[in-house]
């Protein structure tokens, strides 16, 4: 769906992730080589398959299985909030945000969100709960 900017979608996912309490940042993916741009004759095409930004990868699978969003984030643990709890909230917030964004463009693709926690920090003062 070239009309729907993937970049905007990624931004929506990023914002939702960073707004989740307990998420301290996103973990950059290693820079992807766009190996699909093979021939020097044809203009390089950015595949709509996968675009990345710092921390969010979005892929649109053709054929109805919708959008697949992968978010890699860093998390701080606090009393009563395990990594799992924060990851769940992040998941739900990202999914809502992406669905809302799609709905604004009249799309209703299913959205699957995967959250990967790459780093855990424990606040300096307290003990690990």
């Amino acid at each position, binding site marked *: 769906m070239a009309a729907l900017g993937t970049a905007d979608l990624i931004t929506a996912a990023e914002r939702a992730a960073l707004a989740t309490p307990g998420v301290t940042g996103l973990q950059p993916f290693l820079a992807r080589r766009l190996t699909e741009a093979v021939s020097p004759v044809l203009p390089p095409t950015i595949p709509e398959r996968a675009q990345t930004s710092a921390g969010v990868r979005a892929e649109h699978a053709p054929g109805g299985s919708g959008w697949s969003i992968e978010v890699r984030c860093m998390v701080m*643990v606090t009393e009563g909030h*395990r*990594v*799992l709890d924060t*990851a*769940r909230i992040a998941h739900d917030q990202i999914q809502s945000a992406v669905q809302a964004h799609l709905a604004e463009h009249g799309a209703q693709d299913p959205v699957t969100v995967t959250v*990967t*926690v790459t780093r855990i920090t424990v606040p300096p003062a307290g003990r*690990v*709960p």
Partner: protein
Amino acid sequence: MAVDHPLSPDEELTCGRLLSQVWDQALNPAPAEDPHTMTCPSCHEAIASLAALKAATRALRGQAPTYLQSLAHGVMNIVRSEARLGRLLPLADPVLDLRIAESAAAKVLRQAADNVPGVRAAACRLAPADNSDAADGVAVALTLAASLDRPLPERTDEVRRAVIHAAERTIGLHVTAVDITVIEALDPPHTPDPPSPGSAPPETRDGRPRHG
């Protein structure tokens, strides 16, 4: 020791000693007592010829250019951007696809093991448990240094409990097994070795005999 390097212009002193050896001995930071050297005039002369070099070396050691630790920040930025995540393990949610990087979980579990007195964790690997009835079970394998003032099984049991507790309460990870191997003995707190000349790094801190 025979001179075996063809280019080495070693001299034999009149007393029969090799110049290279006499110098070696004189410049050794912890020289052994040698009755010959203490009384031999040609050895004395050979050693005296080094006096200026010895003094200048001492001065140079004191002037070692200082490395700013702030320079480490540049390295750490690169290191953190090339994070080694390891495997991705499932967090304990039956429905959602939530994962944690092995390296992130390992840090928390190692810290839990470290908090058991007399224990320091070294390796900490996690893998999906394939024998678990829950799809999201994780198996942990730890190696430790442990002090021997208590029976090891007691200690490793305490570590096991601490690890499972931290996995559940801090991370939200369903641990089905904790395999522990004690790989070395932990010394009781020791006094550091006397410093070698100049800015030599400290000797190994783990009490193992230096190999190599």
